[in-house]
């Protein structure tokens, strides 16, 4: 074992990729106070790691110089930040008033039937997860569904199968080489 790898092992494994770490290094310098970088950091970290694991929370706290508890306080306020792994594709069905009136619950139920999971569930293969969200600002095209960072609007229950197969299609070539495709969310910039 070379001295270098020994040194790396004595520190714990890096939580973020080198690219993201560099991005964070720049981000904390950008604001008058470091803690202003907290929410963007949490979002980017979640995009990479899939969710805010204990390791992610600890690393973000360390980089900003606040306690882990303060990171959790902020993160728990926002519904888009999560502490448990979601599926590779996180389906968020808006059920606020416009969407609800135009059949959001029927859409949500159809997703549940097709995926065989409950309203807050994750499929056993980790591919899809489902949740209800508050208004996502697409009232003119209600009902709306957000899958990761993609919008699908004016959805009817019979669109559900097509949406799901679209995402299944995206994953297929990668599944031939599973090592290349870690199970995590796709950020829009990926």
């Amino acid at each position, binding site marked *: 074992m070379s001295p270098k790898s020994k040194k790396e092992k004595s520190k714990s494994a890096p939580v973020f990729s080198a690219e993201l770490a560099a991005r964070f290094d720049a981000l904390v310098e950008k604001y008058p106070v470091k803690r202003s970088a907290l929410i963007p950091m949490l979002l980017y970290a979640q995009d990479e790691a899939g969710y805010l694991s204990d390791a992610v929370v600890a690393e973000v706290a360390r980089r900003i110089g606040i306690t*882990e508890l303060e990171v*959790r*306080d902020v993160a*728990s*306020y926002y519904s888009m930040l999560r502490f448990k792994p979601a599926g590779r594709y996180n389906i968020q069905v808006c059920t606020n008033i416009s969407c609800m009136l135009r059949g959001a619950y029927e859409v949500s139920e159809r997703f549940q039937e097709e995926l065989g999971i409950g309203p807050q569930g994750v499929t056993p293969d980790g591919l899809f997860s489902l949740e209800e969200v508050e208004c996502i600002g697409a009232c003119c095209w209600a009902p709306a569904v957000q899958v990761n960072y993609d919008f699908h609007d004016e959805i009817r229950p019979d669109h559900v199968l097509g949406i799901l197969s679209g995402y299944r299609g995206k994953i297929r070539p990668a599944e031939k080489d599973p090592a290349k495709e870690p199970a995590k969310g796709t950020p829009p910039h990926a």
Partner: protein
Amino acid sequence: MPEVTFTVDGKKLRAPAGTLLIDACRKAGIEIPAFCYYPGLSLQAACRMCVVRQEKVPKLQTACTTTVAEGQVFITESPEIAQARKATIQLLLGNHPLDCPVCDAGGECELQDMTFKYGAGESLYAEAKHHRDEQQWSPAVFYDRPRCILCYRCVRMCGEGMDVWALGVSGRGADSLIVPNQPNQLDCEQCGMCIDVCPVGALTSGSYRYKTRPWEMTHVSTVCTHCADGCTVTLGVRQTSDGSEIVRADNRDKNGINGDFLCAKGRFGFDFVESPDRLRQPLVRSNGRLEPASWEHAIRLAASKLKEIRDTRGGAAIGVIGSNRTTNEENYLLQKFARTVLHTNNIDHERSTDYAALARALAGQSGKTASLRDIASACAILLIGGNPTDEHPLLAWLLRTNVRLNRARLYIANAKPIKLTRQAKDALKIKSGDYNDLPASLDAGRSAFAKAIRAEGSLLVIFGEEMRGEAVEKLVAWGVKRGNVRFACLGDHSNSRGAADMGLLPDLLPGYVPVAAPGAFSEYPNLPATPGKSLPQMIEAAGKGELGALLVVGADPVATRKLDPTLFNSTFLVVQDLFLTETAALADVVFPAASLYEKSGTVTNTFGDLQLLRKGADRAGVKPDFEILVRLAGGIIDDIKTLVPFGQRGVTGDLGQSRGAQAGEADRHAIWLEANGLEPKLSPFDPLAILDEIERLVPGYPLDRINLFAGNDVHTKLSSPGYVPVAELAGSGLIAPAHDTLFTSGRLGRWSEALKQLAQHQAKELVETAAD
């Protein structure tokens, strides 16, 4: 800030511009209700209870965030405002369980009081309340989640006040919760301040919850028995079949030297008083075993034996060891008993810092000592050695508060990194042996630290046991030369300072007067003029069989100095203590003594602030050390009035009978007598008789009686007439500091189950956190 004039409810008020309206109103006696506002903490404006109407402003304003300016007009009570406050309470009660009859805070709950005032007794909500189970975060802190009204006082107190940051708020809206820093566990200093500031019964105390109702207790404001800061602690006491027990200790009145603050020891460490291990009757050794005996028999035996040894072998064959936790009156009486009754200067106590050196070094100076209150307002403070966060929690609180609210400049010179460094403007790491050279390096040093200290206009210097003897002298000389410096010296335990001030020292009389000083304490009969044996010398003499008798009051030298149990085989050993300590187990006679919470008198904190104790608890079988000493002396001398000057004006008193219109109002009359220094002192066991003598004879103890008896702290002056070089004091080698943590208290803490549990909890948390 210039003063401005503004109008509240038609009354013209004046306050400095920028004062918060809520503070200005409270000062003028206009009460504005608030849940989230807490003086000294950051502003939250979360509860909306303090809304007021401001002229020319369209909406109601929160008084806790409105600053006053010239010509403003406010209305604080009107039907509109009452309706707004009522609506706020209705919202809070939407989820707050109305379990007031079983809630700890019932009767002392701000939400209850406000509901009573604004009449939101019935709920307009049909929805079921959202119940969540109660959580236990530590042995000290429980969280009843549905009762929480999310005022964030606890979060801010823990973070800003304590600098611990162990509490946070998770979630949002109706799902918000106060959360601790570990999963459902608190890893913190366990001070219990969060419980104290909670306006409702959401945070409750492990030691008090579900024990009693607030109105069933008598609340006695006295001084904490643990560290040397002298916090006021309010004991909630309740009658029992054999006296009265302490059910709760907290900072209910917030009127002491400690303001809002109280630490874990003061709040939870009172349970030693109720320990089943307390001695309840005197013990006398017969056939090699300690057997229970009557007070009469034990006193007669001890007194006759002490008298016999004094008369046959002389006072030099008798030793006396005093306590760090007995009152000034008891300490004074003990040394007077040793010197005038036993004819010996062999008197000492377990020293925790070098007060004598400071007194000597300050001889001839006046106004050079700092009171604890000065810490809260000083502009610049130099802290040398020690770790106040653990050893002097109130001092640490005041330093943090002064830095946070007044931007005081704190300089720390320490061999170890301490938590207060976070508040420091600058910190100097010094080698542990280099404390003695600090003054010289501050004078000549080119470091930014030394330059900053030199540039300060006035300076308050606090030092601990690291500086002793000549080091103290050098420091004081440096400070006096520099000018505008005041000093404070840190020791351990509730009355170490009193023990030293009252002359529990072989070479110094009360007030640090040398035993050989001509004319000192001339009214004492037969005062021995040569210095006696120090504590180690007495132990050595006992080992050689030269010590005929040893009287130990509230000390445990066998345990602290790990002595051989056979050491006292040829010594008649008399012990007064709360528990059967290792020393008491070897004694020939043991007297069960009352704790500091079970007696009245005065104590002096390490800063020299004198405070009055009030008797809280009471239990059958024990007696205050004062009474034990008077009874012992009664068996040795004929005229007890030469020891305790009671009944100088006769032994019948006017308890109100002769006051005409106020006849029979003994309480009011007693207050008047006390305020004028005319307490009757009809009993030989009344410590106030000795307080008179202390005031008359001890240099540095001229007392402001009216303030003292009103419950305020009175600063004593550390003065030492008759200059003796510090180098000639036999002291600095005898100092054995306790280095207490947040959950230990010298030899006393181990009798407190609550403190032991907290220490275990924190030890477990630390291990788990380290393993993460």
